[in-house]
């Protein structure tokens, strides 16, 4: 039972971590909270579902979903955030909420308000591990998430453009004086964050076999909570925060009450913030 809940928690935790990485990177470099992250997740999922229905190719569908998420992220930076740079931080925040409402309304118009099943049925085989039933889909989600997080970490720490993003996050004026094009760095950050959210959306559309215009709302909120839980701006913090949140809510649902599943995630957030106000990995100055 415990192991079962840990595995279930790990699966949702990986998804929260992917969304949280988008939040934390964008906050780290621009100091803004991109509340439209959940809608990008949803658009990624819908694009994959529609492409799959049209072509029958799951790889093409996933690529299309991630590509649309990336394009949306870059457009969002251009339209909703770049013109507001240098203004009071509340203004881009309102712009982000506006973008989020706009995108979910747009999805309702384009895709209709009802739930859609994933057009391809997976029949994952399961096996037992110390009494816990694990299926291949869960393993695949964990593996893909870990892979994406590893690629992101390697990109940021090992490549020239990745280090430039870190440099811009540390001191944007010094980065400009070093010849770094900060607008390019902002674009790459939005692109990466959106790609991760899009991938998370596609995986969850497969896992729950359901896609709807409001599917991004809760994962968006929980990804945001995970980013804060881990220490906003910290990459390892976002990953740990996501996993803690996913496991906490599954354990709470299993041992206390399943009808309060979503509440446990936020209770975990409140508890951590009371004990560690800067988050698990946040800098303590």
């Amino acid at each position, binding site marked *: 039972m415990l192991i079962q809940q840990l595995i279930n928690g790990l699966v949702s935790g990986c998804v929260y971590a992917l969304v949280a990485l988008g939040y934390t990177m964008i906050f780290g470099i621009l100091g803004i909270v991109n509340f439209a992250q959940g809608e990008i997740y949803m658009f990624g999922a819908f694009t994959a579902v529609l492409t799959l229905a049209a072509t029958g190719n799951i790889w093409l569908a996933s690529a299309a979903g991630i590509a649309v998420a990336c394009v949306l992220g870059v457009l969002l930076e251009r339209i909703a955030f770049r013109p507001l740079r240098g203004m009071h931080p509340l203004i881009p925040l309102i712009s982000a909420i506006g973008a989020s409402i706009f995108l979910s309304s747009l999805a309702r118009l384009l895709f209709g308000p009802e739930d859609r099943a994933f057009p391809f049925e997976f029949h994952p085989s399961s096996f037992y591990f110390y009494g816990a039933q694990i299926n291949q889909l869960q393993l695949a989600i964990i593996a893909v998430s870990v892979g994406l997080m590893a690629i992101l970490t390697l990109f940021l720490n090992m490549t020239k453009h990745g280090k430039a993003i*870190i440099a811009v996050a*540390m001191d944007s*004026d010094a980065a*400009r*004086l070093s*010849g770094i094009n900060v607008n390019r760095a902002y674009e790459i950050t939005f692109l990466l964050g959106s790609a991760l959210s899009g991938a998370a959306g596609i995986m969850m559309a497969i896992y729950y076999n359901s896609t709807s215009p409001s599917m991004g709302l809760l994962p968006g909120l929980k990804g945001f909570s995970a980013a804060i839980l881990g220490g906003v701006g910290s990459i390892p913090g976002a990953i740990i925060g996501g996993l803690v949140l996913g496991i906490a809510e599954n354990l709470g649902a299993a041992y206390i009450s399943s009808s309060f599943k979503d509440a446990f995630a936020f209770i975990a957030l409140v508890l951590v913030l009371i004990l560690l106000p800067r988050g698990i990995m946040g800098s303590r100055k």
Partner: protein
Amino acid sequence: MLQVRNLHIYYGQIQAVKGASLHVKPGEIVALIGGNGAGKSTILRAISGIVKSTSGSILLSDTEISSLPPERILKNGIGHVPEGRRLFRGLTVHDNLMLGAYSRNDSARIKNDIETMELLFPILGKRRKQLAGTLSGGEQQMLAMARTLMARPRMLLLDEPSMGLAPIITSQIYEKIGLLNKNEGLSILLVEQNAKLALKLAHRGYVIETGRVVMEGPTSELRESNEIQRAYLGKGYREVWE
């Protein structure tokens, strides 16, 4: 080489620079001296493109650069070592140097230039894997200069290189600045509170007060001027008091 004409800069409602004009010839060291808030740093920030001027022109070898973004100005050959060093403190010394070469694509020569920097500032070679934020003030100033030099500029803007440093470290830094000018032919525009030091090293100087150039000339003349001696070199106080 560099020509600034009638530069005006506003920060919001406040005018920081009120029609300053100055120039730097190839291979020359020029000092800007003056008190706190006189607008010296703002002039450097406008030349490197970090702040935009309201009016006036900035010409580099007869090309207008005042509307270019900082990365383009750096590519045109002006490197700016900002006040307070502004290193990427959480990254290693080596990473800081590599980021200085961000605009370049010739990786073989970049590697070569890192070795050159480690010869010029041997301490940077010893501290290669250390985080920049853990360096001492003098080491940080050396790294900040080396980071900017990694872009291979023809001209260096130096903002308060002696700030917060012990006199012995300051003279080491000034020795390196002199060497870069003499051996590499690097033109240098130097902003400095320590007027005595700046007027000793530079060929020419400008005195900036409340956003205007109030005096200019060869440093040999400026050093002799009574006004400068009293206001910036701390001489002649006795006569004033008595």
